[in-house]
């Protein structure tokens, strides 16, 4: 820090010092000659020689009366010569002697020497004396002398006042009282012109840092930042700001560190700014020099500043990796705060923009890890690619590549992951074993079991002592299991358990062995091993699954009670397995006709799990028992009770399933009427008790019951229910029914809105496909093909093929044809043919339209097979058959194949089922036009 201070001091000193030159050999001279030579040397700025001549004059003739005037005259230049020659120790005495002359020196000379007295004391490290001298110098001038042009003319030495003030501050600093120095600079700042003020700011910041007044330093940085461009020594100021940021970072004050570090410019910007500043200073200096009346201090100051900025730029250009160091610190601050996103953004910018060096390399490797932590898989891949490009030989590259492989795997791009791991495992690096392991694992994810098994076996051979060797041995067994090779799986698991008896997968391996035995229907073994597994790993994550398997095995071997006992041990917290155990138990009880126990089990389940989606299943089971006991009322009661109890709770969607099951208990006509009456009563009761959701459900249930017998009433009930249904919580099944009712009642807009709400609140509803299709068709109906196409595209993208697929594809093909996209339309129609869900008429239509497209394109030869497939394969659909015959005949005519055309028309007119269709007459006419049927080659046997 001291070295820095000295640097600042000299940078701050605008005077240049000339070099000492070798003193001229001088023999004994006269006083006049000493004087003359001294003056000449002084004027030639050869201060070493000048001081020597003056000194000899004083030494040799000091006592001489004749020389007293000459000696008096050299006191001032002698002192100045020593100063300029940097002989400060000697200069102190010379100045004192000059100042003690009687009569005294001229006032300007006194002022000049008092200034240098301060400087010399400063150089001689007598800081208190220096400060006193400089304060004495300032006190020689009237207030404001340095800024008042008239006073400056009167007191030219006043131009040194700002320098004196800056030196006073420096004296405090050098004396070790940095706090006082900072305080002093802060105090004098307002009195200084901008150029000197900026020097005081830099010195103040330095003082605060030296005094460890970091909060005050931060305040100064923030206070000065808006006008930071005005700071001449900007690079120094910025370097101090960086130092302050470091301090906060080390102290764990991350936000304060960020406040500093984000105020440090990039080196390029700093240099550009300082170079522009330098150019500006030079221009101003030139302008000042060109203006005869310009203030000499301005010229003097500008000259000094030019030199300072030049030196700052020169030094700064030598600093390596300035930007990388600042950026890395900023990223570290964010990372320390747990702000990985911000850290990653900074590291990403470093990788993209900064030249390659060690810091950037480490930062870039950290970047891939940061994105990985944030689960930004595409970013991991991007940063990995950029890293490999920028640092192809980096030692960190395998790690970055490995992360990229994991990211591809996590993003579901197994092919890309396999490619990366495959390449990486071939390389010699620490990551080769991991890459090989992950290659096998990714093969498993991609359902490429045999490749995975081969990878894990290769791992065992190449890296038998690696920490992942156990995992590889286990997953090899899993590969066999997933591939259905249960015998091999058991062997592999045995090998794993033998080699890694304390491995991380011993429980998993034991379970998998038992599982494989069960898959091989070796129930004795599976029962024995599952019991051992549950004994040895009672809290294992597979324990519930093991209990279900064991229960199944025991039941299969006739151990019903044992099996039921094992099912009952599945903890309720493991919901899926628990419910599975309950319903497997129910099934077993049903088979052994233990109905009382079955009733207890189901009633208990219903009571304890009212929100389970399987509660309707339990109630149905109870109802079935009562029906079997010829007690339909009891069966109905259990449903009604459940509906009344849970029907107003919109979250229990299985209630809606209860209505569907309940209605089946009212089969006879009078029973059906009773059912409707009870529903109506329930609706009224729930309305009067404020159970609005139950009332809405009851309306829907009434509509369902009347759907076939009284469709009109059914529809109006649905419309009424639709008005009352809160879309966000109503079962999508009901919403779909409401939407269809709205569409049928001539309100397509409301129907579409209902379907949209269905999708909005139930993105995974089974009714999604129907809703998307309906929305598309509604748009087609209203002539809006663009939105229709958007709905149909979603239908295709988001839904597996279903019974609406054919209709949707045909509609899409129609729109494509309208837009003139015949090739695309033909592909879409081919999809209709390929879909297992397309109906016969839909396939016939698709075939006909493909043929028609070929015909329109002038390819009758391509069209014919499509038309023919209709009357060969879809003869049931007469409309399409007739059209196909006619078009097929026309195609042959275009091909000038009259025989085939005639045959085709003849075949059609021979088909009596087609006689009432409009195409029949046309075919007949064409046949006649082609001069009647051609005589058969072989005589008719009849």
């Amino acid at each position, binding site marked *: 820090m001291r070295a820095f201070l000295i640097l600042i001091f000299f940078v701050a000193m605008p005077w240049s010092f000339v070099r000492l030159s070798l003193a001229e050999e001088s023999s004994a001279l006269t006083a006049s000659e000493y004087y003359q030579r001294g003056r000449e040397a002084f004027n030639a700025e050869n201060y070493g020689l000048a001081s020597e001549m003056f000194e000899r004059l004083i030494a040799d003739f000091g006592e001489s009366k004749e020389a007293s005037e000459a000696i008096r005259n050299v006191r001032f230049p002698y002192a100045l010569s020593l100063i300029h020659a940097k002989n400060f120790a000697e200069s102190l005495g010379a100045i004192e002697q000059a100042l003690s002359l009687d009569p005294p020196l001229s006032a300007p000379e006194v002022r000049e020497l008092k200034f240098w007295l301060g400087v010399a004391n400063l150089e001689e490290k007598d800081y208190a004396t220096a400060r006193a001298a400089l304060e004495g110098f300032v006190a020689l001038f009237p207030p404001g002398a340095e800024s008042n042009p008239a006073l400056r003319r009167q007191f030219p030495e006043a131009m040194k006042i700002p320098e004196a003030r800056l030196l006073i501050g420096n004296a405090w600093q050098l004396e070790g009282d940095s706090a006082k120095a900072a305080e002093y600079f802060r105090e004098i700042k307002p009195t200084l012109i901008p150029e000197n003020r900026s020097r005081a700011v830099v010195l103040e910041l330095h003082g605060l840092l030296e005094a460890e007044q970091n909060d005050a330093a931060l305040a100064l940085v923030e206070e000065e*930042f808006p006008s930071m461009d005005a700071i001449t020594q900007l690079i120094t100021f910025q370097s101090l700001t960086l130092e302050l940021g470091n301090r906060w970072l080390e*102290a*764990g*004050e*991350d*936000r304060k560190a*960020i*406040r500093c570090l*984000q105020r440090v410019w990039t080196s390029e910007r700093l240099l550009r700014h300082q170079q522009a500043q330098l150019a500006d200073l030079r*221009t101003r200096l*030139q*302008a000042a020099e*060109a*203006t005869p009346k310009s203030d000499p201090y301005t010229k003097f100051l500008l000259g000094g500043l030019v030199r300072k900025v030049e030196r700052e730029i020169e030094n700064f250009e030598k600093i390596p990796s300035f930007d990388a160091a600042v950026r890395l610190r*900023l990223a570290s601050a*964010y*990372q*320390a*705060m747990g*702000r990985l*996103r*911000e850290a990653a*953004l*900074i590291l990403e910018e470093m990788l993209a923009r900064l030249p390659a060096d060690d810091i950037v390399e480490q930062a870039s490797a950290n970047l891939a*890890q940061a994105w*990985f*932590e944030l*689960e*930004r*898989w595409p970013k991991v891949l991007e940063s990995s690619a950029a890293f490999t490009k920028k640092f192809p030989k980096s030692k960190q590259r395998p*790690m970055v590549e*490995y*992360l990229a492989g*994991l990211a591809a795997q*996590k*993003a*579901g791009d*197994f092919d890309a992951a396999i490619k990366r791991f495959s390449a990486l495992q071939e390389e010699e690096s620490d990551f080769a074993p*991991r890459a090989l*392991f*992950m290659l096998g*694992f990714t093969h*498993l*994810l991609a*359902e490429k079991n045999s490749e995975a098994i081969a990878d894990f076996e290769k791992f065992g051979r190449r890296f038998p002592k690696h*920490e*992942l060797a156990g*995992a590889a041995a286990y*997953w090899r067994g*899993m590969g066999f299991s*997933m591939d259905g090779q249960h015998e091999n799986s058991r062997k592999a698991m045995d090998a794993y358990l033998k080699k890694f008896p304390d491995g*991380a997968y011993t429980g998993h391996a034991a379970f998998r062995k038992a599982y494989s035995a069960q898959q091989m229907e070796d129930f004795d073994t599976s029962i024995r091993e599952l019991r051992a597994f549950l004994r040895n790993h009672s809290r294992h994550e597979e324990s519930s699954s093991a209990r279900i398997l064991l229960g199944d095995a025991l039941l299969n071997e006739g151990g019903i009670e044992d099996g039921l006992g094992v099912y009952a041990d599945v903890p309720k917290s493991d919901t899926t397995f628990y419910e599975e155990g309950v319903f497997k138990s129910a099934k077993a009880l049903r088979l052994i006709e233990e109905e009382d126990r079955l009733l207890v089990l189901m009633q208990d389940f219903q009571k304890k799990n009212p929100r389970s989606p399987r509660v309707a299943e339990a109630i149905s089971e109870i109802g079935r028992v009562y029906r079997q006991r010829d007690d339909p009322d009891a069966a109905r009661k259990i449903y009604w009770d459940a509906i009344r109890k849970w029907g107003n709770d919109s979250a229990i969607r299985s209630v809606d399933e209860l209505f569907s099951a309940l209605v089946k208990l009212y089969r006879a006509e009078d029973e059906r009427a009773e059912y409707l009456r009870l529903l109506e009563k329930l609706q009224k009761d729930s309305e009067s008790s404020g159970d609005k959701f139950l009332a809405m459900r009851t309306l829907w249930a009434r509509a369902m019951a009347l759907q076939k017998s009284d469709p009109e009433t059914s529809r109006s009930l649905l419309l009424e229910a639709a008005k009352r249904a809160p879309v*966000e919580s109503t079962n999508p099944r009901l919403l779909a029914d409401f939407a269809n009712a709205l569409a049928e009642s001539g309100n397509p807009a409301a129907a579409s809105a209902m379907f949209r709400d269905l999708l*909005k*609140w*139930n*993105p*995974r509803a089974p009714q999604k496909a129907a809703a998307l299709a309906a929305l598309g068709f509604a748009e087609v109906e209203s002539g809006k093909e663009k939105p229709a196409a958007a709905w149909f595209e979603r239908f295709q*993208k*988001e839904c597996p093929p279903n019974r609406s697929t054919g209709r949707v594809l045909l509609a899409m093909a129609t729109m494509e044809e309208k837009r003139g996209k015949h090739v695309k339309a033909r592909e879409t129609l081919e999809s209709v043919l390929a879909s297992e869900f397309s109906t016969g008429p839909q396939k016939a239509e698709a075939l006909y339209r493909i043929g028609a497209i070929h015909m329109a394109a002038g390819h009758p030869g391509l069209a014919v097979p499509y038309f023919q497939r209709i009357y060969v394969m879809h003869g049931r659909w007469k409309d399409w058959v007739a059209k196909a015959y006619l078009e097929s005949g026309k195609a042959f005519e275009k091909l000038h194949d009259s025989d085939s055309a005639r045959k085709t028309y003849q075949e059609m007119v021979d088909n009596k089922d087609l006689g009432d269709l409009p195409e029949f007459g046309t075919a007949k006419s064409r046949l006649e036009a082609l001069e009647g049927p051609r005589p058969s080659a072989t005589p008719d046997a009849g």
Partner: protein
Amino acid sequence: MSRCISRSSNFCSRAAAILCGFLCVCAHGQDVIFQRNGEKRVGHVTAVSEKAFRFEIQLSQPTGNPGPATTATVSVPRDSIIQIEFAEDPEAERLLADTNPNRLRDAGTLWQPAMPWLAIPRSPAARIGRIYAEELLRTGKSSDAREALKVFQEIESKAWDEEERMTAKQGRLRAMVATGNAKEAIQEALELAQTTENPTVLIEANFLLAEADTEALRQLVKENPRWQEDSLVVPEHAKLYNKALDQYLFCPVFYGSNAAASARGLWGASRVYDFAGERDKALECARDILSMYPATDVASLASKYVESLPKKVTASDPDKESLTPEPTPTPEEPTQPEKPKKKSQSSKKSHAKKSTKK
């Protein structure tokens, strides 16, 4: 070079006089023209045309003549000049200072005569225009926004200083939004974000894009309130969420010293986090604002937000705890891989889980 003794009559208004002073005349300074022939001339530049500058010079006083100095105006061809060093004008600076209560009016008055000087190197015309346009935008009136748009366009197309042109471009984007052309502004921002390197423009472009992505995110969630359940919406949600955050954080992370824009970006990020149910992260962004940008407009919003949060959320303040920086996490150890599933949806799931409203 032609000479004339009379002053130029083009600049007769008060504004013109001040501007003239700003550009060229001040009590303590004079303009210096640097000519190609190496000559430097000291005087006052009073007007500019396509081909020449009008330059007022002081003539030498005959000895013993105590009267006022005589001036002459000369015409200096533009192509003979390398550069002009304009003198400073404290009066114009006073009018442009942000402490001036009539800054909008005064900047507007200065702007009109300043316009012809936009292209002249080292002239302050662009700065005057920028201050005027910023003041216009500050009023929030659409008519003023339209005027600001014109001023920014003028500066962007003519100013000599590239930095001023870029600042004007950024201002123009804001003015476009203020005049109801947000869509076009966003489109342009998108192009600029990919092409420009100018920080001022990048900051504005990223902010506009963040706003657009946030709006799209809100719309997506409005249309898909149960988006977490929809495997097709989850990636779109993640994309918009990440884009919005990355863009909002652009300024605070890379140009954090720009207080107003950084605080604005942090507040945007805080809103996105809050919308996604990540109140701990929203809180941290709000705390950034309060700690780093307490004097900005959004600080009061951030303060209210912090106060509105339950104490259990605000209880922990990492900034007040002495944290030892953790080393960057090592890559995931694959010793305990998940069981293979048919399709890995881990990214979607984890994103959905994180973004679930609490």
